[in-house]
């Protein structure tokens, strides 16, 4: 999972495919709620989804 997060960060997938990113980030945050890097990406993905 952490590898996927790194991939999102490097490829901006949270920006380009926010729906996909959302589900996996939410799953990750259920197990590690204090992961602020993942939470930040989740916030960006949510914002991106709203703009579509």
């Amino acid at each position: 999972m952490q590898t996927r997060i790194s991939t999102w960060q490097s490829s901006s997938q949270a920006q380009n495919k926010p729906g996909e990113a959302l589900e996996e980030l939410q799953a990750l945050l259920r197990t590690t709620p204090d992961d602020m890097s993942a939470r930040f990406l989740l916030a960006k993905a949510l914002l991106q989804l709203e703009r579509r």
Partner: protein
Amino acid sequence: MSAGDEALDEFLRVAQADLNNEEAVLQSVTLLSRARQYAKALALLEKSHAQHPEKTDTAATLAYLLAASPQNDLRSGARALPLAEEIFRTTGLPQHGAIVALALAELGRCAEAADSQQKMIALAEQKQLMDLASKLRADLKLYEGRQSCRPAGQ
């Protein structure tokens, strides 16, 4: 809850955990302002600026809200002016100089606001920022030849 509301919650959690994350702070402020929660937006900016005074975008957003918050009772032209002047001294950017003009307008110093704004229009044109120059020129009309030129509130 909409995706935008959820995004605000998440940005706020990140910003409150780490005020050094300027993007999270400013996204929170944008979304709070959109939701007309100006007091909360201002409080977050104040806290972030107190901890990280070197962050220019945060300082500029704070100065802007102090000068021209849509909620008039949150404004403080007296605090906005020195902050905006310091930011402009640091960056030299016309968009930051325009906050000086806004603060002067909030203080009722309309002629000085107009003079400052004219200088920023010239600076924007010199830097080939024509869209910005055009916007600043439109705002200039709010300051010129007026006895009262406070930025419009809600």
